[in-house]
């Protein structure tokens, strides 16, 4: 845990700082490896990468307890890793192997982990919000002081379900933490080209849900906001929204020619790479030395290599199991 020297500028506990850095690097290297595996044809279908947005998942999930719930989207590799699902079953799921975290059935967009209350990769834009409201309703009805964190992108604010979910959560005072990862683009359409009101916290206010916008490229800022928000949601049992302003460094999915944005905008944002800026901060505070960097890098590389080996060795599910897990085939 880290303590606050004075409002706003938290002094950082070394262990925690290195952990945050390590978590972000895990995600970055995992995603980079998936690009390589996709190009080689081992991973198929759609693949939506989290490169550039790592600080949001790493920072926000620190504020949650193992008992809280997470509902995420098809860009959920990072969230799963931070939540604790081992990299092996995640990579195996990308291969479609039976030892994948969803038995290989879901692939990149559909990671699930019941033990860690990770209710998936739900891949229809906005489709997760009503589900999160429901999970929170169940907790309220059963008197459980739990938080349901719902991650979604800026594209989802265009769906009716966004307003319907926020309104219901506010109306029934449900413990939902709405976490919007605003990476400025809904696939190929910039936020300003599809929303008249681009301030997402104002939209939420209109539906009765208080919130704030936070720099999604600063992992400490993300963590700080998330902890305060969880206090409100769990303590006062009512919904809260945080709009993380962040950016994805790669295409929406594999691949698109990115005609919808220009190169220098990407370069500008890359200057604020959450891993690069946080490493500089750690070094400034004397919390990270080259040796630490090297050990973390080695640990991450080993973890990723093991994950690939785990996936490569995984069995394919026998065709006879085709209709298994279907209640009424």
């Amino acid at each position, binding site marked *: 845990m880290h303590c606050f020297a004075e409002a706003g500028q938290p002094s950082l506990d070394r262990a925690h700082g290195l952990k945050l850095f390590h978590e972000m690097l895990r995600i970055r290297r995992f995603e980079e490896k998936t690009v390589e595996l*996709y190009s080689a044809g081992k991973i198929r279908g759609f693949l939506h990468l989290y490169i550039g947005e790592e600080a949001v998942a790493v920072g926000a999930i620190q504020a949650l307890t193992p008992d809280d719930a997470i509902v995420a989207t098809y860009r959920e590799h990072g969230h799963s890793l931070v939540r604790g699902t081992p990299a092996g079953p995640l990579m195996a799921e990308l291969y479609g192997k039976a030892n994948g975290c969803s038995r290989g059935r879901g692939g990149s967009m559909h990671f699930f982990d019941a033990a860690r209350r990770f209710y998936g990769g739900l891949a229809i834009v906005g489709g997760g919000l009503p589900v999160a409201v429901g999970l929170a309703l169940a907790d309220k009805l059963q008197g459980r002081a739990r938080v349901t964190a719902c991650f979604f992108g800026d594209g989802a604010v265009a769906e009716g379900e966004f307003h319907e979910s926020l309104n219901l959560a506010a109306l029934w005072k449900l413990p939902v933490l709405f976490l919007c990862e605003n990476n400025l683009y809904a696939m190929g359409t910039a936020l300003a080209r599809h929303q008249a009101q681009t301030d997402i916290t104002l939209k939420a206010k209109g539906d009765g849900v208080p919130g704030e916008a936070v720099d999604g490229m600063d992992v400490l800022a993300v963590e700080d906001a998330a902890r305060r928000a969880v206090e409100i949601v769990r303590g006062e049992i009512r919904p809260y929204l945080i709009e993380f302003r962040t950016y994805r460094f790669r295409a929406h999915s594999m691949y698109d020619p990115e*005609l919808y944005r220009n190169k220098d905008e990407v370069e500008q944002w890359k200057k604020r790479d959450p891993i690069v800026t946080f490493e500089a901060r750690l070094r400034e505070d004397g919390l990270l030395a080259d040796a630490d960097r090297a050990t973390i890098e080695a640990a991450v590389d080993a973890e990723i290599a093991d994950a690939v080996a785990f996936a*490569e060795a995984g069995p*394919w599910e026998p065709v006879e199991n085709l209709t298994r897990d279907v209640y009424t085939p």
Partner: protein
Amino acid sequence: MAEFVMPSLGADMEAGTLVAWLKKPGEAVKKGDIIAEVETDKGIIEIESFMTGLLEKTLVEPMTKVPVGTALAIIREEGKPSAEPKSALPVSGAPPQPAVAPVSPTPPAPVTEPGRLRVSPSAKQLAAELGVDLILVKGTGPGGGISRADVEAAAAQARGERRGARIASAAGSAADRLLRMRQAIAAAMARSKREIPHYYVSTTIDMGKALSWLTEENLKRPMKDRLLYGVLLLKAVALALREVPELNALWKGNQVVRSDAIHVGVAISLRSGGLVAPALHDTDRQSLDDLMRNFRDLVTRARAGGLRSSELSDPTITVTSLGEQGVESVYAVIYPPQVAIVGFGKVVERPWVVDKQVVPRSVLTATLSADHRVSDGHRGGLFLAAVDRLLQEPERL
């Protein structure tokens, strides 16, 4: 040393056109560097290297379209000797080829009512057209069902043609068919003996008048219209049934069901063995010439295996005549659900008393087997007396 291959750049991409190299052979390459541009259906996409090392040589010229996975260049990885180019990634086992899972689950084996034929509507239609008796056809379709091919084969076989239907397997052999018929007859006879309390009455009938009238009549007719005496017997039985209607009935759901119409079934032996008893519809209303023509048609078609199943299904009584085989009297077994059967023996010369004189006369023995639940000996006797009386006035038949 590793191959740099055309990457898979999207869910529906099978090939890509290398547009330009952004690195030249001999140049250093870092992991993540953009080293080429590729055009896909969606536009130009920058391609990065996943290895750090030296770009040894390019294998594909710009503006050439190659399938995903084709080697585009060789990169000598840092600190690795330039050994044989291998794919940069270990190759995992290929997924098992899907066995052709039965996509459409076969419908559950249908339970067919015993005795009911499993025959496709189209096959039933064709059988009617070709005059094929479905009872005699062996089904080769799923679950023993009878298909068009089976009907065509049966018709072909009945006509003696050996036309191998291209798809159909040949119908079952004649032995099979005979066996099936035997089984059907056995089942009927056993049930008859089990359920029907038979009683038997018989009488001897003077055929003199009938036979001489017949000879006279045949002289007047062209050869192919000549009558056989059997026709006189059939008409006599039919007319007699008008006087004793309870013998012209069916036993269904343990009660007697009278039949207004009189359809006399005629027992016909088949060349290959076995027996059928097709009906002559409204026997009592047919003229002797009609009866002869229909009777002849029935026998010919039965022996050619070409009987319409409807003709089998509704005789209200049966006549069997084993006189041909030199038998004097026949005690036949009733065909369920009928309630009576008449048997005629051979015509024989017997001493006969006429006006207290003993003279030779042609006579035959007529026997009635009847269901005692429906009628009793007295009524049976009246019936045979009526037949005898009617045969004495052949011109009124």
